[in-house]
């Protein structure tokens, strides 16, 4: 699915990623943990082609294609989705128009006819249920006036609409109360298939209890310094990162 090799990236001239190697196979869920400022969001943004970040070295192959050569929208059409740590508000653009433009752009890329108005609204209705997104929210402008939790729910709703093969969840659990966390996590699990993979960034065990990652990585200071099974997340929950820092001499 995804093969990252020796990836270096910087923002405003400051190097943040200092050589990331990471391979994610079809069907796998990887968790990415690490202290604030370690570079987790930077890695996510580089993968989806955020122009604010500059890749200075390394390669990323996604399903056999050179990801770094693609525009952000092409990466989306190829099946990559990112649930933003801080979803953006877009006043004046309705959720309906936004999603219709997104869904039909992807269909066009894959040489499919655009959805008719009624087909599209039916799809919206069906996918809203995945995360129990209120109809009122679906009729508003994108994220405008949404609470923190509603924004995160809306991210997973959009994921349901777009059916990506590789999803990045960047702290989707932060700002969610326990019930909302369960709904969002269960919604995510409903969208999983044996072919879809994910990279899940979180600080908390609770989300991982639902998502059951295959592999857990620790990102510190721009590098992946430790990789293990689900038990690594439990260790971090109990002991923090200091012991890992000592282990790797940071």
């Amino acid at each position: 699915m995804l093969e990252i090799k020796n990836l270096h990236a910087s923002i405003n001239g400051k190097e943040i990623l200092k050589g990331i190697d990471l391979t994610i196979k079809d069907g796998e869920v990887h968790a990415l943990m690490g202290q604030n400022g370690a570079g987790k969001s930077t890695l996510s943004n580089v993968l989806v082609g955020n122009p604010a970040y500059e890749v200075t070295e390394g390669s990323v192959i996604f399903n056999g294609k050179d990801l770094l050569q693609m525009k952000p929208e092409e990466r989306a059409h190829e099946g990559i989705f990112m649930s933003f740590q801080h979803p953006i508000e877009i006043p004046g653009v309705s959720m309906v128009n936004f999603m219709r433009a997104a869904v039909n752009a992807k269909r066009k890329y894959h040489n499919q006819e655009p959805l008719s108005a009624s087909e599209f609204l039916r799809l919206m209705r069906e996918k809203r249920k995945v995360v129990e997104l209120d109809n009122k929210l679906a009729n508003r402008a994108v994220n405008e006036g949404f609470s923190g939790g509603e924004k995160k729910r809306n991210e997973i709703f959009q994921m349901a609409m777009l059916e990506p093969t590789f999803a990045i969840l960047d702290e989707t659990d932060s700002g969610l109360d326990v019930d909302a966390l369960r709904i969002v996590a269960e919604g995510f699990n409903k969208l999983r298939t044996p072919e879809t993979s994910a990279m899940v960034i979180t600080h908390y065990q609770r989300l991982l209890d639902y998502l059951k990652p295959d592999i857990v990585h620790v990102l510190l200071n721009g590098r992946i310094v430790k990789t293990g099974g689900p038990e690594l997340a439990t260790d971090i929950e109990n002991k923090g990162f200091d012991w890992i820092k000592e282990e790797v001499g940071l």
Partner: protein
Amino acid sequence: MTGGHQYITQSADGKLLIHVPRNERVEQPIRITIERRPDEPLEEHRDIEIRVDESAEARIILNDHIKEADGQTHTIQNLQIVAGENSQLEVYEVEETYSGHLRESSIVVDQQAYSRVTLLSLTLQAGKTVNHTVAHLNGQGAEVTLLGGVLADGTQRVENHTLIDHAVPECTSNELYKYVLDENAVGVFEGRILVQKDAQKSISQETNANLVSTKTARMFTQPALEIYADDVKCNHGATVGQLDEQALFYMQQRGIPYDEARMLLKFAFIGEVIDRLPLESFAERLRHLIEKRICGELPSCGDCKLCK
């Protein structure tokens, strides 16, 4: 000029009068489309008077449709509006001319007590346009709403100079002008709110917001409050910004192509003006025109969602 409505008369010197007598409510919008016949002079002096008497109600649409000709076309428009006591009037002016046209327009509104007037000035296509709009709130409790939308690109230049004159107490004014400037376009907004000495309890809100989407387009804005009364609620503000890069990227991440994302943002921006129009059927028509206008900038966008 076309019209043919019972409320419209034209005098020998060419002046157009739209007169709605006392208590009369005109439900259907009165539409006037201004075109130029090839045999008419290049320079046109246009005189229009709109009189809506006491407790009368009307909606008037003025479409300025001067097309390209053999030589420089030039319009000088004088529009006088008198809104009688307790009357209700909406005037929607839409300019769809072309890049070589020169338009100078002057609108003067005289509002009597408790009259409510909404004026829209929408510039969809223009060459050089200078609009002056003056609203005198001469009767207590009068309310005026000035709305403006400008879409300009190429070397177009659009100026709006407005003055709202709170001459007596307890009047309300609302003003919102929004510009979307592309390429080398130049926009000018000068908005003066004058609250005279005796005009206590005046309420006024003035906003000018501008989206300058290239490095070469320029916007000049100068909102100004001049207040000589002490018991008033007045606010004004102006902003000049670019397209929101983060919003563009968010849309791209969802698969919306960059150019289409830009158009969606421009449409959303100017849409706020249109959303304020009381006449929904006309607002819908304008949204359609604006979509077409925004897409026209990008000949390659033929199949984007907005252009269908």
